[in-house]
């Protein structure tokens, strides 16, 4: 079965004005992590992670298993409280508020509102099994954005068509391939009109022949100017699409360079070893 072509994903007519990902900002970075620290018990998982992503840039994140890549994304998405450091979205510090001269974590309801500005795509798709593909894409619009069912259905239907799944809108996840599920998951995040999209190994759980269709959607998104952070083992994707590549090891960033430099002439010994191992 040949795949239908992808449509225009970051469309103001669909997402509403302005398309958050395309908005001109004064901030230097759309998303910025400053000295993030995260500990689980005695396990220091993040030990001072600092980096920024420019508007429209794609940042690929590589690193061995257990180096803290997923934890970093969950912290950036405000899904996990950090022990120290800052997360900034368009220059504004998020996840905290001032109370009596001190910064305290936001209450869960306010955190939820900030999370809706950030799109997240998971390795295992995490689609909702009790909803159809369409229902999965609609639910954020109706339950978070307060859109009417009719409006949400129209937007969701269009977005599903643009990731090439118009025929599958009424299917439940058990009836979709892994690649199709992941494309639905991307559509589910996209309709929220996020300022940035975070991907946690979006193709690692897929059969090899299904990886391409998901990467195609992500490349289209990158081409249209979405700001993205992509944890991936797909070296080809990182070379082709990323503006910068980060190497994580032991909870810290040990290398952050444009792909040509990163892959051609890595500065750090561990990066070199890692690249040899994955090739």
């Amino acid at each position, binding site marked *: 079965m040949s795949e239908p072509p992808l449509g225009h994903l970051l469309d103001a007519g669909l997402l509403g004005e302005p398309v958050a990902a395309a908005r001109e900002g004064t901030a230097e970075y759309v998303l910025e992590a400053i000295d993030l620290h995260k500990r689980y018990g005695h396990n220091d998982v993040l030990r001072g992670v600092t980096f920024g992503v420019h508007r429209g840039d794609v940042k690929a994140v590589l690193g061995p298993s257990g180096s803290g890549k997923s934890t970093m994304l969950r912290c950036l998405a405000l899904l996990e409280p950090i022990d120290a450091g800052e997360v900034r979205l368009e220059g504004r510090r998020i996840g905290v508020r001032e109370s009596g001269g001190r910064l305290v974590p936001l209450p869960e309801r306010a955190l939820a509102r900030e*999370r809706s500005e950030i799109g997240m795509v998971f390795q295992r798709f995490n689609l909702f099994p*009790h909803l159809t593909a369409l229902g999965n894409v609609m639910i954020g619009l109706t339950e978070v954005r307060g859109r009417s069912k009719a409006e949400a259905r129209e937007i969701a239907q269009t977005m599903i068509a643009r990731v090439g799944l118009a025929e599958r809108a009424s*299917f439940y996840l058990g009836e979709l391939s892994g690649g199709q599920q992941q494309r639905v*998951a991307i559509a589910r995040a996209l309709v929220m009109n996020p300022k940035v999209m975070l991907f946690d190994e979006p193709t690692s759980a897929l059969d090899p022949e299904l990886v391409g269709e998901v990467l195609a959607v992500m490349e289209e998104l990158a081409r249209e100017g979405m700001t993205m952070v992509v944890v991936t083992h797909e070296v080809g994707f990182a070379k082709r699409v990323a503006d910068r590549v980060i190497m994580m090891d032991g909870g810290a960033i040990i290398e952050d360079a444009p792909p040509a430099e990163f892959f051609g002439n890595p500065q750090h010994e561990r990066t070199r070893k890692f690249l040899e191992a994955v090739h």
Partner: protein
Amino acid sequence: MDFKPSVFFEALTSPAFIDGVRVTIMLTVVAMAFGLALGLLVALLRASPWAPLRAVAWGYIWVFRAIPALVWLLFVWDALPQLVPAFKGDWFSAFAAATIALAMNEAAYAAEVFRGGLLSIDEGQRLAARALGMPPSKVFTKVVAPQLIRVTIPPLSNDFITMLKLTSLASVISLQELLARTQTLVASTFRFVEYFSAAAIYYLVLVSIFMVIQAQLERRFVWISQQTASTSALSRVRQLAALR
């Protein structure tokens, strides 16, 4: 053999019997509803991040699984009014006492079922819902609850049938449910076989009706699309045809 069909059919259709059935159904439904609500609360406390709340929930389940339902029923009916003056009022009928006792008993079991159900839902579901920006209440009602209902229908249906049978305990506090009615009629006629058989038939019919409802309910929670449902129905028909 001493079995008079005429007495048996008279028992089946007697107004007193039917009234008893009505009370049995009402007590089952009301006690189950309160039991499920309380059970869900206990299960959520059990999953609370705050240890004292978890301890309260654990203690509740421990106590109410240990105490026999009959002992607790008699305690609620006879001892509670002595302990707490509020239970001396007219409102505290045998029906109210039975509802409270059976609901509290059921809650301990339902809490364990809900706890198992909550644990069975992939953590990624909550994570994805939160990532979309849903506040905690929506994460629960829109994402967790539908999946929780699906996995708990079979065990809770079991509880429902158990509850239907447990309501007969309320005959000891003279609630005029099915068993109490039967015993009254037996006491005046000494036709044990006919009356107890008639009561058994009613329980059988009630449980059977409920089993049909359960099957309908389970079907509503099968998450496949119309297309697949019709093709799989079709393939089932084909398979049957091939067997002939």
